[in-house]
């Protein structure tokens, strides 16, 4: 039997590669200078779902919530073998914390009624690891975190969980939501044939923007017509990335965005990377001796 799988993916700033260029003179990080990437553990989640489809059949649908730019990770998912991509984008979803985000995702996933949901364990921009568990709770799916190995036998999943100081094997009823560790697998690279086919895949919001650029001076009506024509054309070719807003997924606005988020930011401080009392020693014998001498003098060693 096949399993219908949904994978939640996120586009994140590459916080791991903060180099000189991304640092301002005052020592704070220039977030705009960071490249946007596929959240690493979401790639492992996608690979796990693709593997299930390879073994048992079924479908893999990828969902990203965010700005239209998140279409990049959706296209990347199509290149790697996902069957369908869905963008959830809505201004009213802005400022959602993990609780509101998991609520919005649950509304979308409820429409798809998958057997299995896969999330990366955590995203590198927030590192909270909260959306997966909260999404499972909202969907009423069995939660299995820290997945490293998955086997399926009809109505149940057998999962090896990496719990840091060891592992645990659990048997879980379906439908279930798994949060996937980076140690679970090696994500397959994009396939050339799929990339050539799907590189033109677009979401309606991207198509409308392209039309705006091409027919800037035309009437609004002409632009709307052209956008509709192109969307129909893409759909016919199977290259349309589905796009849902909060109305499409019948979300209660009271639980979305800022209104649906119990946590509020009180203050943000940038970390300033400027050592106050930095002292450098040359790598010579004398430099090393001076350094050791200093450490002994202030009783740090010795």
């Amino acid at each position, binding site marked *: 039997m096949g399993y219908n799988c949904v994978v939640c993916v996120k586009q994140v700033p590459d916080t791991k590669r903060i180099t000189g260029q991304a*640092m301002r003179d005052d020592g704070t990080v220039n977030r705009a200078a960071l490249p946007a990437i596929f959240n690493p553990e979401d790639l492992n989640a996608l690979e796990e779902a693709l593997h299930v489809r390879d073994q048992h059949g079924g479908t893999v649908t990828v969902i990203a919530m965010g700005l239209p730019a998140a279409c990049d990770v959706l296209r990347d998912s199509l290149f790697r073998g996902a069957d369908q991509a869905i963008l959830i984008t809505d201004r009213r979803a802005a400022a959602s914390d993990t609780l509101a985000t998991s609520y919005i995702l649950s509304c979308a996933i409820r429409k798809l009624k998958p057997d299995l949901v896969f999330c990366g364990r955590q995203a*590198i921009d*927030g590192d909270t690891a909260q959306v997966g568990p*909260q999404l499972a709770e909202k969907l009423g799916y069995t939660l299995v*975190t820290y997945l490293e190995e998955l086997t399926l036998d009809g109505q149940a999943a057998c999962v090896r969980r990496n719990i840091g100081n060891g592992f645990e094997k*659990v048997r879980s009823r379906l439908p*279930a939501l798994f949060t996937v560790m980076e140690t679970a697998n090696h994500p397959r690279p994009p396939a050339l044939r799929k990339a050539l086919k799907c590189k033109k895949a677009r979401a309606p919001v991207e198509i409308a923007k392209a039309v705006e650029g091409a027919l800037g001076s035309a009437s609004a009506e002409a632009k709307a017509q052209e956008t509709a024509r192109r969307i129909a054309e893409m759909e016919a070719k199977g290259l349309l990335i589905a796009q849902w807003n909060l109305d499409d997924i019948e979300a209660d606005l009271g639980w979305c965005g800022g209104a649906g988020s119990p946590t509020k930011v009180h203050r943000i401080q940038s970390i300033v990377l400027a050592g106050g009392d930095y002292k450098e020693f040359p*790598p010579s014998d004398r430099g090393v001796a001076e350094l*050791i001498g200093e450490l002994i003098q202030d009783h740090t060693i010795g």
Partner: protein
Amino acid sequence: MIEMNRKGEVWVFAEQEAGHLSDVPLELLSKGRELADQLGVPLAAVLLGHKVRPLCATLAKHGADVVYLAEDSVLAQYQTTSYTRVVCDLITAYKPQICLFGATAMGRDLAPTVASAMKCGLTADCTDLQIGEHTDVQTKEHISNLLLQIRPAFGGNIIATIVNPHRWPQMATVREGVMRMSVAEAGRTGKTIAFPVSLAGVDLPTEVLDSQRRPKKVNLKGARIIVTGGAGVGNRDNFRLIWDLANILGGAVGGSRAAVDLGYVDHDHQVGQTGTTVRPALYICCGVSGAVQHRAGMQESAKILAINIDKDAPIFGIAHFGIVGDMNEVIPRMIKTIRSGAGLSDAVKSASKA
């Protein structure tokens, strides 16, 4: 969610496995004690498990005024569904104002599930907790005595302070090793309240088939000196130098995530956001570039010495002492200097004359 309850207690989830408390709840009790005293409310521990009553006395010695004890054979092993149900029942019954969990494998599974079920806020991996006031930017509403939840975000490049003004309890997780461990007071006792567990007929959707845990081989948290190697060490043979330097200094060996991934050293040695958080008297990092995830786990060290061949490595930005050079040459020089302890003062003298 529960309504704001100014008389509500401060709660600490007392994580235990097979009847053994981990360090985190004892660390949380020391911070919880501070918060509870500031708010003028009792501090309580929440203990779930099977035959774990003896742990109540330990929790009281470490600062808990009250221990809520939920015992049942179903709770012998942690499972999301059963633990969530009992913790939510407890919160609904006693309306605490603050609930703290360790940011452990268990805590990071349980706390978000509880927060989702209670529809309240949760802040992950806090590095500090304070009581303070908050004014809403839009409504200008001013609220005092809120839990200020302080955490690094954005890969550790910013520090965010988060509040949960209205939808209580105010929930947070705290990483192991971040708060100082409370000291046990021999004569201190507390009240134990046995909470009836209503899990009869609950069909758990998961079943634990096998569970294997190994104790950590390395005690990084307790080390006064830590010598850490990163990807810049180059290979497993060179990593021997890290061990040599640590041995001569009587310190422990750490590894950056990159060094662990490259197989230079075992995962138990990993320092950083996904490893152990440390605060030794001296932290020596060799060939560690200083990625934010690493810095998050060691920047509280009293003294940081960085040895790196790249003068632009971010690690120098937080170091107190630095040597720009090849660690394969620098470390043997350091070992030689430390060994020849007698000649040391001469070396320093002649160096300072120059």
